[in-house]
């Protein structure tokens, strides 16, 4: 049952994401004052319909209730009885959020959020408006054949009636499909038919002559003429006929076979259906039971063909059977993590193998064995690399997933704020590790809130400054090497550096004399300080106790960095650079006391030559001065309790790697810098869970397994938390551990 529930949650998630996309598209069409796309409305109906069915089966009561009400609303909307107004759209967008809350609660094993559901339900009723002036469906006179109507769902029936009401012609396309290739062939037909009208339904008929093919009657409503359709949709197994309206035959008491429109040609009955009658046969004779005799399959084929169907062109291929049906598989990301872990293990095995290979090759009497072993090793190396990149690829999802959510946020906030904002998205197809995408949405949302709140000016201000009334927020994503770059750019007021500096000075973050030498980057860096705001009052939008510092922390957690550029009066650009995957990180490989270690590059700020002469001791802690600021030092060999090799000589050149975590900086003294390398981190395992200072182990180059240093943990241990929230360095390190005795 657990698996089923997971399946339910992930399917519900997908449906809700699709629903949100459809609503955005509907919103766009309403804004353009086009009529709402009925297909989109039907899609939204189907979404909540499925949600209702699923949630009731899985006992998710609130979700079921909510879906039930939404289904009713959307059902009426698709049947043309309720109008799609911006107000209704608002409620529907809210519903997407509430669905999200419910799913989040389910995932966390918490009860469903009752209040938000109840509030939304209350709002549902008040927002509905029905079109004025008579029934939306005054089509009773069309009186379609009950045999046809019997197989139509209510919605399909509504679409049929609507099309007929608008004077759109009705056509039947009879197609014979090879069952083995029906999906592709059908998609092809759909895409060709779509520009010419609306496909109302597909009626499967007979079984063809054999088990490998099937005839379908596709009911198409189109304003094109029969000739045009015959040309446009021509194909080897396609026949197209126009269907006449029963209206024209109502007075006719002749046999119900003469059903074609003006051109009414002779009708040849297809051999498969000897007792054919008209699609719109009068029901006078049989009354209520009429349709049990007149089936839709027979009814439609009556108006089908003037000539015999041409012979099948596709040769049936019995071998091509049901395979290829399900082309996607949902996988728990933990399973992928597990696979990645095995790859890391294999890489370590590979290293050991490489060592043995070298030894064997070094022995002259084993030369041939050595060559063979070397070749095998190279093969293993290559395949292991392929395996690793294959697994990484599976973890990748397009950023579009999170962008859709942002588009909704923009819409909502700009409405709340009475600012017209246009969101322009590029690079939604850029792929990033699934885990990163999930963690990205909150920081991005906050950045966008900021851009609308602090960036985009009010309509009047924009007008005064000669800017277009509608502000623009550009959300760009693109890949750059092993990283993905995300930009949030607005054409708003820009950040006032003087104001930022004034606030920073007032809060004692920097002295007036220090500000002279500061670059724009340093000044704007203040906005990432906890609680930093140049606004006086707490704003409802951005000032929810969450500031840019939290955004920065979240981005850093993902191994990313955030930069800000701004021009006063022109706009602001926030740039987030992220690794493509969390499974592989870039690291700086260093040597400490003769052993190799990896320092994740995300926390490394810079590396410089260690000059013991600059070291001072303040409060029993070693510090040095770096560009005028005090930098706390940590000798990692002593910190890890590693014995200095006997050969160690204080005159040998050593290095300081400056690591930064949040606002804190720490200089780590190491013996050697080897270089940058992409590594796969393997956890140390449960028994070593309590060991602090290491994020895991990894394979470093050909022959080395090394530990990955957990820079944040070390910084935290060395510098007591809460100390010295100075941007440019910690002045009073108070940690008591580590350091040299």
């Amino acid at each position, binding site marked *: *049952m657990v*698996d*089923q529930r997971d*399946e*339910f949650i992930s*399917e*519900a998630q997908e449906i809700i994401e699709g629903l949100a996309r459809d609503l955005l598209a509907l919103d766009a069409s309403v804004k353009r004052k086009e009529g709402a796309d009925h297909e989109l409305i039907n899609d939204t109906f*189907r979404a909540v*319909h*499925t949600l*209702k*069915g*699923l949630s*009731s*089966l*899985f006992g998710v009561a609130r979700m*079921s209730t909510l879906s039930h009400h939404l289904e009713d609303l959307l059902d009426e909307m698709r049947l043309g009885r309720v109008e799609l107004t911006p107000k209704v759209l608002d409620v529907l967008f809210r519903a997407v959020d509430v669905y999200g809350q419910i799913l989040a609660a389910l995932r966390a094993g918490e009860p469903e959020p009752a209040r938000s559901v109840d509030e939304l339900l209350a709002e549902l009723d008040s927002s509905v408006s029905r079109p004025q002036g008579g029934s939306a469906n005054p089509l009773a006179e069309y009186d379609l054949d009950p045999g046809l109507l*019997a*197989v*139509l*769902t*209510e919605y*399909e029936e509504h679409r049929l009636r609507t099309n007929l009401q608008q004077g759109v012609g009705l056509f039947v396309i009879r197609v014979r499909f090879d*069952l*083995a290739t*029906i*999906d592709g062939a*059908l998609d092809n037909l759909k895409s060709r038919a779509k520009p010419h009208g609306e496909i109302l*339904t*597909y*009626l*499967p*008929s*007979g*079984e063809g002559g054999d*088990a*490998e093919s*099937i005839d379908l009657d596709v009911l198409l409503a189109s304003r094109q003429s029969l000739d045009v359709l015959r040309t446009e949709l021509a194909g080897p197994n396609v026949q197209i006929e126009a269907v006449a309206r029963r209206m024209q035959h109502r007075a006719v008491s002749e046999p119900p076979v003469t059903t074609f429109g003006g051109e009414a040609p002779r009708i040849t009955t297809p051999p498969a259906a000897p007792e054919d009658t008209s699609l719109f046969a009068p029901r006078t004779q049989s009354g209520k039971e009429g*349709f*049990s005799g007149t*089936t*839709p*399959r027979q009814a439609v084929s009556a108006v089908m063909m003037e000539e015999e169907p041409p012979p099948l062109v596709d040769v049936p291929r019995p071998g091509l*059977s*049901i395979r290829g*049906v*399900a082309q996607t598989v949902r996988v728990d990301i933990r399973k992928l993590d597990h696979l990645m872990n095995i790859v890391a293990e294999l890489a370590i095995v590979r290293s050991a193998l490489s060592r043995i290979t070298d030894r064997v090759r070094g022995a002259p009497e084993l030369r041939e064995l050595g060559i063979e072993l070397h070749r095998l090793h190279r093969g293993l190396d290559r395949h292991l690399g392929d395996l690793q990149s294959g697994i990484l690829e599976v973890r990748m999802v397009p950023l579009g997933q999170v962008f859709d959510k942002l588009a909704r946020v923009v819409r909502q906030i700009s409405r709340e704020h009475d600012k017209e904002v246009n969101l322009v998205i590029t690079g939604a197809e850029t792929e990033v590790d699934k885990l990163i995408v999930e963690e990205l949405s909150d920081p991005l949302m906050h950045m966008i809130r900021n851009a609308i709140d602090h960036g985009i000016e009010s309509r009047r201000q924009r007008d005064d400054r000669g800017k277009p009334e509608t502000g623009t927020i550009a959300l760009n994503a693109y890949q750059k090497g092993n990283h993905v770059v995300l930009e949030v750019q607005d054409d708003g007021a820009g950040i006032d550096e003087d104001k930022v500096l004034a606030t920073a000075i007032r809060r004692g973050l920097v002295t007036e004399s220090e500000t002279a030498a500061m670059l724009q980057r340093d000044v704007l860096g203040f906005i990432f300080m906890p609680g930093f705001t140049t606004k006086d009052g707490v704003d409802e939008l951005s000032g929810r106790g969450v500031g840019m510092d939290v955004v920065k922390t979240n981005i850093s957690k993902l191994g990313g960095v955030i930069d800000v550029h701004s021009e006063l009066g022109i706009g602001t650009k926030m740039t987030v650079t992220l690794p493509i995957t969390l499974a592989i990180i870039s690291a700086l490989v260093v040597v400490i006391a003769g052993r190799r270690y990896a320092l994740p590059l995300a926390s490394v700020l810079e590396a410089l030559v260690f000059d013991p002469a600059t070291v001072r001791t303040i409060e029993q802690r070693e510090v040095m001065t770096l560009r005028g600021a005090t930098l706390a030092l940590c000798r990692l060999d002593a910190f890890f309790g590693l014995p200095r090799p006997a050969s160690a000589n204080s005159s040998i050149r050593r290095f300081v790697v400056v690591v930064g975590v949040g606002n804190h900086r720490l200089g780590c003294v190491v013996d050697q810098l080897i270089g940058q390398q992409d590594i796969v981190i393997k956890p140390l395992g449960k028994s070593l869970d309590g060991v602090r200072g290491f994020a895991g182990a990894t394979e470093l180059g050909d022959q080395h397994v090394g530990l990955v240093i957990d820079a944040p943990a070390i910084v935290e241990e060395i510098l007591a938390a809460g100390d010295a929230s100075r941007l440019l360095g910690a002045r009073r390190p108070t940690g008591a551990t580590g350091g040299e005795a």
Partner: protein
Amino acid sequence: MARVLVVEDSAAMRAFVRAALEDESSHDPIEVTEASSGFEALRLLPRGPYDCVVTDVNMPDINGLELVNFIRKSEHHKQTPLIIISTQASERDKQRGIALGADSYLAKPFEPEDLRMLVRAHLDKRARR
């Protein structure tokens, strides 16, 4: 072994139905074949025979009613017991389903036992014929 074809566009719902039907230590176990659309059902039907077909109504393209109609008209499957499962338990749909030749109509949500009993009943009836 009895074979049941389940036609349903929701994967979670298919999993639910599969669990309901297969979760039984019977002397006559049920083998479930899943179709995620009406078209897939059309493709799978010739691979039968199936002893029972369980179908949803609201599906894109070919809906469940059309499928019922097709099966009832087809030479090979017209005797196959048909069960409609749908949230649209409105009288209209129910009547239509039955009029088209469905043997039973089960409204979602249902208990796994209900579906299992219903399918069993049709299988037994068929076996007696």
